């Protein structure tokens, strides 16, 4: 069964450093998302991406964040200058047009020290 994959599974970085989190969505999916979950809190939407542009973003997704689909398979989230409060699990998700069900990857645990 096709799955969303994410790399790395765990990333440790120092405050102020740039990180890139990578995702490979399910191959025939056209909508892509990033969510995050801070420890003990709920899963929060960050951004959605369709047709090579951002279709929706949350207040969390400020100028420090960017997304890109650099090729036909990868979808990336870049945090330019990480802060301690960026420490969280980051989940990538994807879906097909006209669908409500989103399929999530296993997540990347980002730890900012």
């Amino acid at each position: 069964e096709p799955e969303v994959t994410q790399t790395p599974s765990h990333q440790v970085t120092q405050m102020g450093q740039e990180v890139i989190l990578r995702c490979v969505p399910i191959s025939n999916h056209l909508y892509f998302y990033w969510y995050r979950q801070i420890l003990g809190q709920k899963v929060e939407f960050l951004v959605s991406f369709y047709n090579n542009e951002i279709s929706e973003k949350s207040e969390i997704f400020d100028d420090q964040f960017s997304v890109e689909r650099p090729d036909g398979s990868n979808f990336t989230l870049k945090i330019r200058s990480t802060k301690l409060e960026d420490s969280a699990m980051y989940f990538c998700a994807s879906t097909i047009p006209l669908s409500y069900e989103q399929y999530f990857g296993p997540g990347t645990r980002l730890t900012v020290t």
Partner: protein
Amino acid sequence: DQQVKQNSPSLSVQEGRISILNCDYTNSMFDYFLWYKKYPAEGPTFLISISSIKDKNEDGRFTVFLNKSAKHLSLHIVPSQPGDSAVYFCAASRSAASKLTFGTGTRLQVTL
């Protein structure tokens, strides 16, 4: 932003019994609701969903009920099995392919 709420952080049920997980929402623009199951160190896994035009959807041991007037939905698992032990998230959406708004989750423990 408490548009989707799960007021029970945890629930313990004996194997074989029914598990009932509850979810309330405040935004009447939501038109589709989903339940996700999450194990530690894994991503949320889609379980079952329901459109706002229905009041019930069933898939094997899992049934979701929607009460639009009360802005309430519930997930019933019967019979509960030890492998059902996980955190269950309720989520809501305003339209196809738009963002999901999640509740805080309910940790279900199914005991032997």
